[in-house]
């Protein structure tokens, strides 16, 4: 896959749309009283409304090794790909989407793959127990070796042995320093109301950094997903342009590992009932997850029609989503 094929917009898009794009000059301070941003170069910009889309950075492990790879930027991905060789050995640390997608890519290329994760089950934050187990079996069939429930504290740990590449995918940390420096309410994310306004009504936060009230989560949540980033951005643009909108989109997520495309609609979380429909042995099925008699989220493996139906269903008022 060529790098330009994953560009969302080409470089000249901003010129064409008369958007001034400033890169390589980080915003370092917000002076809310005078509605001014100060950049690293000393340049100052005034605003009437400000949108913080500061994203997140990867959580790293201490210890020195030139074998480590984190996956956040295009440069990270290209560097990793250039080091992957048939017959080589990869260690993936972390049992989430990143670790598992890296493991699947490496196995498909003919590398030996071992995956260590602190959690006892795969993708524990994002899927039901049923899906964790199904994906563990999928990876094992493809030859991935697991060491689950094994926390890695440092890259110097001799238990890591000596693979050719160590991919670390142990989560991200939201970039909240700029907001905190300006006295905005921010801890594990920049806190917003349901219009994505921060504690300063002229400042919004969107995307990975926004800790926002979400009806499907039943409280404040921070989401790392394409859906959340794009829908929140449009929502705030609409509000700033004069048509205020509350953020109320059904969350959805996806991951592809080996021959399985997993699509999730709704908000993964605790469940007390999971109903499996379809044919798990044939790799085409969906899991409907209920909590206290209400449909909470639906996971579909190679069943796109179920996923789309679930997205539509979850938009309905909660009162009609009961299991009985």
């Amino acid at each position, binding site marked *: 896959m060529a790098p330009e*094929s*994953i560009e*969302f917009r*080409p470089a000249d*898009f901003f010129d064409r749309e008369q958007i001034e794009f400033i890169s390589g000059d980080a915003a370092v301070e917000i002076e809310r009283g005078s509605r001014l941003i100060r950049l690293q170069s000393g340049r100052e910009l005034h605003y009437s409304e400000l949108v913080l889309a500061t994203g997140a950075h990867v959580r790293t492990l201490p210890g020195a090794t030139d074998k480590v790879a984190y996956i956040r930027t295009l440069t990270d991905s290209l560097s990793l790909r250039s080091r992957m060789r048939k017959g080589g050995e990869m260690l993936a640390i972390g049992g989430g989407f990143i670790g598992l997608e890296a493991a699947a890519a490496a196995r498909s290329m003919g590398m030996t793959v071992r995956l260590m994760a602190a959690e006892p089950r795969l993708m524990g934050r994002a899927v039901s127990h049923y899906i964790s187990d199904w994906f563990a079996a999928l990876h094992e069939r493809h030859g991935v070796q697991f060491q689950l429930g094994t926390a890695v504290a440092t890259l110097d740990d001799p238990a890591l042995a000596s693979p050719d590449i160590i991919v670390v995918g142990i989560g991200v940390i939201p970039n909240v320093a700029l907001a905190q420096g300006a006295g905005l309410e921010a801890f594990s994310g920049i806190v917003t109301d349901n219009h994505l306004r921060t504690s300063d009504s002229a400042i919004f936060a969107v995307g990975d950094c926004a800790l926002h009230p979400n009806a499907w989560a039943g409280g404040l949540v921070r989401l790392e997903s*394409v859906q959340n980033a794009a829908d929140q951005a449009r929502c705030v643009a609409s509000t700033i342009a004069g048509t205020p909108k509350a953020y109320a989109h059904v969350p959805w997520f996806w991951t592809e590992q080996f021959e399985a*495309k997993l699509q999730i609609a709704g908000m993964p979380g605790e469940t007390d009932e999971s109903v499996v429909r379809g044919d798990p042995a044939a790799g085409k099925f969906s899991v409907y997850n209920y909590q206290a008699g209400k449909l909470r989220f639906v996971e579909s493996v190679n069943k*796109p029609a179920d996923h789309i139906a679930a997205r539509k269903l979850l938009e309905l008022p909660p009162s009609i989503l009961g299991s009985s």
Partner: protein
Amino acid sequence: MPNITYISHTGESRTVTADAGVSVMQAAVRNGVPGIVADCGGECQCATCHVYVDEKFLGLLKPAEEDEDAMLTLTASERKPNSRLSCQIAITDKLDGLIVTTPEIQQ
């Protein structure tokens, strides 16, 4: 290299020259053709690259697969018999001259 023509819902036409192999969505985005959003980047996940394909070319396209067919039920503008997701149409030399119309809204 194949030429692809995009007509907006108001009738404005743009023709771009595309490399074979890229998708009708990518050719639009790279050339700044308005009316195609492509939130998910071409993964058949978001239904925001919806187009109506000129009837003359429908027979030249591979039919929509299961995931595209499902996703087409989520389009913001009406789904018609000639509705496709442009990220799922790979441009080939035989599609030279392809005409697609972008819908009024994508989300």
